[in-house]
């Protein structure tokens, strides 16, 4: 359940970005989680529901986009999307591959709320 500390790191980073932009709150955060990142999107969602309690982010929407694994094969040169939990080439079954996508664990975009009062006098 390292998702909880990951959710907490995300919230800390989001808080820093909110403060930097002097925003009044955060409407939503878009995250990318690769299927090989070792992070379970459902566990992460649950972690957010706990971690945001009694914070400024209780109403923030956490959008978790799953990024499928894609591997480039060093044997046949093809790029394929493995359907199992471990990365192998779907074309020739080789395990000598480089992971192209799937390890992502990223904050993609943040939708900040700017208090309108500040925008017009």
């Amino acid at each position, binding site marked *: 359940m390292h998702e909880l500390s990951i959710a907490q790191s995300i919230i800390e980073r989001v808080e820093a970005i909110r403060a930097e932009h002097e925003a009044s709150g955060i409407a939503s955060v878009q995250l990318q989680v690769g299927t090989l990142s070792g992070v379970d999107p459902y566990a992460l969602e649950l972690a957010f529901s706990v971690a945001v309690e009694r914070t400024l982010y209780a109403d923030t929407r956490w959008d978790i986009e799953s990024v499928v694994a894609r591997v480039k094969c060093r044997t046949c040169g093809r790029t394929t999307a493995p359907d199992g939990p471990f990365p192998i080439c779907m074309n020739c079954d080789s395990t*000598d591959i480089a992971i192209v996508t799937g390890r992502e664990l990223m*904050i*993609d975009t943040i939708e900040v*709320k700017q208090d*309108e009062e500040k925008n017009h006098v």
Partner: protein
Amino acid sequence: MCDECGCGDVDHTHTNDPSHDHDHGHSHGHSHGHSHDHDEKVVLSVREKVLARNEELAAKNRLWLAEHNVTAVNLISAPGTGKTFLLERTLERLQGRVGCAVITGDQQTDNDAKRLAGKGAPVRQIETQSACHLEAQRVGDLFEEVIQDETRILFIENVGNLVCPTAFDLGENFKIALLSVTEGEDKPLKYPALFSLAPVTIVTKTDLLPHLDFDMEACRENLRKVHPGMFVFELSAKSGDGLDGWIDYLEKLG
């Protein structure tokens, strides 16, 4: 949905002029002037790794270790695989030959540190409390305490957990996965994240093999499937079988 007027069209803008035209196909009156209590939203592109902070600290640890000529290995396995027992035997064998230091992590208690004490290597315990893994900061904070001039190898014994510690770089040179024969030969397939990252696996408790249906060849095949070129040790810290190869390897490392 637009938070200002509640319509379904998000691609429009609102101005503060109450007599403005709506460009989204319906109209409604604004009875208020300037006392808006709602917010404008701005989307910021961040594109930042979630564990960027941990990775930064891990890079700092890695640099510090390199400057002090220390090789650090991050030992990861399920609870009960025998990390601490193997370390006890390892420290005894390396005592007086290779300078060692240990940082060991558990959720609670300093039992492991007590077991590892008095074997010629400084040992520090991290109690992680609720966390199921070690992070770069707490490990790096202990370097000055645990690493001496003669230290060549730092063993970082992670919290017993096959999943979570894998995601957190500590600044080690590499990870070593441990797998006991009682856990089954298909463990590398069930938990590929660790085995695909660790270049070395130690299969422990081989003294129990006569009592089990464990298929060592299938285990090695599974390890290679997840990690081609995986370096595998088979040993029993209890009987001492296979320990020589591991000790030789560490002596070369140090």
